[in-house]
Structures are given as C-alpha cells and as structure tokens.
C-alpha cells in the first residue's frame, strides 16, 4: 500500500474536509464523494495529483444490500503510473436521477467502460461521445445486472421471433 497522505492534503485544501470520506480496507484505499462533486474530484486527481490512468469504472446495485442507503454505487479505480498510488473513488446515485458527468474528457479509456455500465445498469453518463448499448442488442429492454432483473431473464430467449424457412 503506497502512502496517500500528500494526495489527501491536497484534496483537503481544494475541497475542504466535509465533502469526501477516506477509508482503508486491507490493501484498498477508498474515497467516497458526493455525485455532484465526483467529476471535479476526479479531474483534480488527474490534473493535480497525477493519477494518469483509469483502471476501471463499474457499478454496484445495492437494492438488497443490508444497511445500504443508496441504490447505485459507482466505482472508479485510478492509478498514478509514476508513484504506483491507487485510489478507489466511489459515488452514489439514486432513482430517478441516474445521471453523472462522463469522465471520457479526462481518460479516453473510460469510453467503453462507461458504455458497459450504461448497458448493464442504465446509468446515464452526460457528455459521453457515444453512449449506446455495447454488449446487448439495441432493442433490449431492461438492465440485466440490476438486482431486480432475474437471473433467468424475462423470457428474451424463449420469445425470440422464429423465422421458418419456406417449403422445398
């Protein structure tokens, strides 16, 4: 685990102490921020603190999670390739306002990662250059990784239109 105290100092002087919450668990160093602040914190981390690589963007649906207050938790994992510092930035979203600014302007690598989150959870990334479904067909209804979507699906496979070949 690489020391992050310098980064935390910088965050404190830029955003104050109230707006973020830092914690550690085993090898992970995590930061929870408000959804409105998420983009500016990530921008600050990239441009000032040198977190130049985005490792992953993903989402967790906390619908049935014991003790959870919010529905969706977005997870950004960022890495400083020079110092090896890693930080997991999390922000929470609730229905009906499932919108968060896209980080594609900061890291181009976010393009497909955010499209996958949109495809599986229906989170809208505002400002994304090409927000379409990526793994599922365009006409698909619903978001399969949400917890209210059943494992066996909603009959998409069984109700598939059958094309019969002509006789002879």
């Amino acid at each position: 685990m690489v020391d992050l105290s310098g980064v935390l100092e910088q965050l404190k002087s830029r955003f104050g102490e109230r707006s973020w919450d830092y914690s550690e668990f085993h090898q992970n160093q995590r930061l929870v921020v408000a959804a409105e602040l998420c983009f500016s914190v990530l921008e600050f981390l990239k441009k000032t603190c040198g977190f130049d690589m985005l490792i992953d963007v993903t989402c967790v649906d906390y619908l049935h999670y014991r003790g959870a207050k919010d529905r969706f938790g977005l997870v950004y994992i960022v890495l400083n390739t020079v110092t090896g510092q890693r930080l997991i930035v999390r922000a929470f979203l609730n229905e009906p306002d499932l919108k968060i600014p896209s980080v594609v302007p900061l890291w181009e690598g976010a393009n497909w990662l955010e499209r996958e989150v949109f495809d599986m959870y229906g989170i809208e990334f505002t400002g994304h250059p090409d927000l379409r479904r990526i793994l599922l067909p365009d006409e698909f209804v619903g978001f399969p990784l949400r917890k209210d979507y059943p494992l066996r699906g909603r009959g998409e496979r069984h109700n598939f239109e059958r094309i019969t070949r002509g006789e002879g």
Partner: protein
Amino acid sequence: MSVVVDAPQKVVNQDYRWTLNFGPQHPATHTTLRLVLQIEGETVVGAIPDIGYLHSGFEKIGEHLNYNQYVAVTDRMNYISPLANNVAWHQAVESLIGLQLPKRCQYIRVILAELARVSDHLLSCGAMALDTGAFTAFLYAFNQREVLYGIFETLCGARFTTSYSRVGGLMYDATPEFIRQVKQFVKDFPKVYSEITRLLNRNRIFVERTKGIGILTKEQAINRSVTGPIARASGVTRDLRKDQPYLAYPDFDFKVICSNGGDCFHRYLVRMLEIEESMKIVEQAINNLPEGPVNVDPEERAILPSKDKVYNTIEGLITHFEVVMTNRGLQAPKAEHYDAIEAPNGELGFYIVGDGSDKAYRARCRPPSYIHFALFPDMMKGHTISDVVAVLGSLNIIAAELDR
C-alpha cells in the same frame, strides 16, 4: 449493437468508399468478434468494432454461485490461459477475506500463472505469425502448448477448463510426476523457443508486415487504460508482479521487459522475451518448491480438512460438517475489495462486494481484452486491409473476455 456509419449524403458522394464486414465468423478473427471496416481502395479509413456475440452474463452468474463454484466460470472467461484466471479470482477472494496462503501454495500458483503466460504468449505470437504469413512458427508454438496441456492434465485432470484453485488453497497438491514434467519442460523448451525466434525475428515478410503497423504511443497507452505486454511495448514500465508484489513473486529474480517501439513487431518481441523471463521464474520456483501444507489451516473454515482427520478425530469431523454448512462455513466479510494480478494480457482484477454470505454480492471482472479492443479503430487508421490481422493478432483479443 447497431453500427453507425458515416452520414448518408457523404456515402453518396463517395461511392468509391465501401464497407467490409469482417467476422463474426472469420478465420483470422480467431474468436467471435465483428469489425465493420470503411474502405477506400485498400486503405481502412474507419473501423467499428461490434462485440457482444458471446455475451453469457458471467458477472450475473457470479452473484449466484459461491466463491468456490465460480472458479469454473473464470476458466471460460479466458480459454487461452484459464489458470491465470483461476489464480486471479481466488487471489481477489482471499484478499477480501484476509487469508494468508502457505508458501507451497503460493509457489505452485506462481508456477501455474507463469506456465499460463507462456502458453498464452505462444498462442498469440504463433497466431499472429500465422496470419501474417509465417505458418511454421505457429505449429512449433502450438506443439509446445500441447506439452503444457499435458502438464495441466497431470495436475488437475483437465486440459482446458482447469478450475484448479480453491479459496485458501488448491484442489490437489502437486504430485512428483507433475514436478518431473515441469522440470522436463524447462529443460526442453529453450531449444524450441530459439527455433521459433529464428523463424520469426528476422523473417523479412513477418517483420515488414508488423514493423511500424498499429503504433500506440506511451501517452495514448496510459490515457486509454492499457496494461500488460501491450503497454510495456509502448514504454509504460509497469508490471504488477514488481509494482505490487503478490503471491511469492518477491522471491524470484526476473526482469520486466519493456520497449519503446509501440508497434505490432515490438508487441511480439515483448511477448517473446516475457516467455523467457517466465521460464526463469518457473525454473526457480520448481527447484525451490517448499515442503509443507498446500492449504490454509482448516480452522479458517475455508477448506475441508483431510479425510484422515475427518475419519479419525472428532474435531476434524466437526470442522468438516461446519465447512459444508451454509451458515457455518466460509463467509466473506460485508465489505468491498479490489485486487488484481498481472495476467498474460494485462491487469486482470476482480472487484468483489461481499455481503457476509458465501456468495459474492457483486463480482466485477476488469477484463484487459475488453479495454484493449477499444484501441482498435485508432490503431487501424490509414493502414491497409492486410494489416487488420496483424493488429488484431498483436492485441491478442479473447472474445470470451470481451463479452463476459
């Protein structure tokens, strides 16, 4: 999965520009993926990757299988190097729970992860050579993969879908026969390896078709989240085995291979030299394989006690029953954790959300191939159709990892 092509009026004005569908079933894609290429004469002016043909919902399945069952799914995520995926998954689970593995287990996992790297790089270099007109090297490489399959079969009974690791240990301990076979492989491999490099490194057709093709700069590589051999071929000096040492990697002497070339040829070179470094690690590990238990203590409630203990001691019997009971057995803490290993293709990580039960609440996989395939349109700009296969081969796209 609809595909956006250029605006219609543009197409009307430029009727010399046409669209070529590459895949989803094409011998040179090697896996099921589709590319829509916009072509002017021989030159590719636009490329749109279209994925999702294999989407099987692995992450959704991960929320319904317990930590040991899910290892069988991780095999299917990457059929080129399944053992590396097994190791990555259980490493993530163990670091979520906070289990410390015995030395012998760590060494065996290192050996397997490195053999998986060798087998992955042999395939990706061989297939790239095959697509760019050097057929023989592919056969030499595949023959060695056959030997590796044999070794894996000796170890766990499966050639392809190994599912070898368990939370806190392994399915079986390594047998003397396995150790003998690995030692034999370490001895025999350098001869074939040098034959492959002699067939390719100065092969004029191969070099001309790959040098200067599909260039990725260091800035682009970092900005686009690229990891693994592709990033190292572009001058990003990062390797998780050195930067965040896991398992027993600090015990071994090896180099991280980097290059500033950034083109297909240098990606090939980096992979070939990595094979050499991997073999060094395997040699050191197999010669210094520690004795002792291969699984964590049964008191950790992660792994079943040995049959001898179960049948002959009351404590063993009680532990056995507790481990198989869903409310007394292995329980991950109610917490979230991300951990990654340096898989053959790059950083393969799992973000696991535990909810206090024996199943993951969310099992997110960070797939390197998925991230690397997003580079393809930019790498292809201005090259010809025949370069498509060289770039695809050098990216080593594995469709099951794309779609998960």
